[in-house]
């Protein structure tokens, strides 16, 4: 009998060609994103000074002035505010889900987290306009309740699921033997959680927070609808601000394709892309380090 190889051209083509190429699709998309944003945006620096763009504070596109610093500070401010609210909530929730809740309750709350995560950003924006804004305006006696503070609160709820689920994973990864050793010494559950378990999971929690930062910086609709829309550098959380994302979304509808304003918006997009890439890569590295570290410690 002969067991010679039949030539299987079709199979070979499919395997080497189609499947392998699809595997590289993600890389292709990333490169395309980079390329096309640069394509539309880089010409901007032919007509405008990069330094002025990044550091000047006057964003008046109608007068041809594109100092985007206020947009950057707007994004940062809203993000910081959201973290101030989100991190404690996320940590508390993660501790509850991971360390205190019985298995069934844990399951329910994990589903609740997913539900929270799935709510569209435009719905959060609507919530801000119809509820939070007016409430903040009344409570703090302001001109408008659509400001960094309100946006920050809403963003906190959007970042919460991300931070909480990564923190939960980190807590779950702490070896049982550590908890048992602490309890065996007579420590209470709470003491064990806050003195042993949580510190052991801290790098994972940090990674989760960084992912949350990425989420908050990149959020568009909510800030567009709720953050106010005034491009000013300010330390006052109750002031209306503009974020990078909101600016792109709001102004792109009014530009002429190919003109300076249009290109400026693409440049903001590029900056946004680079920032979120950096934040996500960093958190990825941290997560990788934890996973490798855990490998040596797991009981």
């Amino acid at each position, binding site marked *: *009998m002969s*067991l*010679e*190889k*039949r030539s299987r051209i079709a199979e070979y083509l499919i395997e080497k060609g189609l499947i392998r190429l699809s595997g590289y699709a993600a890389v292709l998309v990333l490169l395309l994103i980079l390329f096309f944003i640069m394509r539309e945006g880089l010409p901007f620096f032919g007509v405008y000074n990069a330094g002025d763009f990044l550091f000047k504070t006057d964003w008046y596109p109608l007068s041809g002035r594109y100092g985007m610093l206020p947009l950057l500070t707007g994004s940062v401010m809203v993000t910081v505010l959201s973290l101030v609210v989100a991190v404690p909530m996320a940590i508390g929730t993660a501790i509850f889900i991971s360390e205190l809740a019985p298995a069934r309750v844990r399951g329910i709350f994990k589903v609740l987290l997913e539900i929270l995560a799935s709510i569209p950003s435009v719905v959060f924006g609507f919530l801000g306009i119809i509820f939070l804004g007016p409430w903040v305006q009344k409570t703090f006696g302001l001109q408008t309740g659509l400001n960094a503070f309100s946006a920050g609160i809403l963003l906190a709820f959007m970042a919460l699921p991300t931070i909480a689920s990564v923190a939960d994973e980190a807590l779950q990864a702490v070896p049982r033997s550590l908890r048992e050793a602490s309890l065996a010494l007579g420590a209470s559950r709470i003491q064990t959680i806050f003195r042993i378990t949580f510190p052991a999971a801290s790098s994972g929690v940090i990674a989760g927070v960084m992912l949350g930062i990425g989420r908050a910086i990149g959020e568009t609709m909510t800030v567009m609808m709720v953050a106010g829309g005034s491009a000013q550098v300010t330390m006052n959380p109750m002031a209306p601000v503009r974020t990078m994302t909101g600016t792109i979304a709001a102004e792109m509808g009014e530009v002429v394709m190919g003109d300076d304003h249009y290109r400026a918006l693409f440049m903001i997009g590029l900056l946004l892309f680079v920032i979120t890439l950096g934040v996500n890569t960093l958190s990825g590295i941290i997560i990788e380090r934890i996973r490798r570290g855990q490998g040596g410690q797991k009981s």
Partner: protein
Amino acid sequence: MEALPILKLEKVNLHYGDNHVLKNISMDIAANSITAFIGPSGCGKSSLLRCLNRMNDLIDSTKIEGKILFGDNIDINDRKLDVTQLRRKIGMVFQKPNPFPKSIYENIAYGIRIAQGAPKSEVDGRVEEALKKVGLWKEVSDRLKDSGMALSGGQAQRLCIARTIATKPDIILMDEPTSALDPISTQTIEELTLELKENYTVVIVTHNMQQAARISDSTAFFYLGDLVEYSPTKVMFTRPQQKRTEDYITGRFG
């Protein structure tokens, strides 16, 4: 009268990366016989079994030297060989029964269909034949559409054997086929194996010496990658020639 060898191994050496797992294995396996590979854990018996149907190809760092000849002196490691056809001629039953999450019928029909498109009537016939050969037909003929995974351990393993013989192989390799089964199922499989000898050649890896003694015609004893002794079963278990063999058989280690 000695049957012609259906497998000839000549100076087979196997490396997993830096590990020299099999050292200079030479042996002939006779057709229509049951050959048992025995030895302590890590001796290489499963690795050698997996060389025979080139399942070691799945592991990246494998290097094999020497010759393994099948049937009419076909070198199974020849690059020009179509390994999928080889595997239809040399089938394998695994340690833990692994039926596909498909119906009982489809589990067996799968092997037939991937070989060549056969008309439904022929497939029906071959499925029935395979199930009969393993003694499952009576038990499952009225529920062929049920999931193969709903079967109990012993039945599931018989399904896997039926699945293997549906491709009409010459050799059936068995990698500790009963170690995950209860004693009664084990006995059923052992009886089945003895019946299979009539039409197939069986090579069985087992860590259970009594099993080897019960069903095999020849036994090969491996230790740390060496083929220590290879003789007819009756001889190996009554008058072992090597001290290591005798030590293993009498339970001094293993």
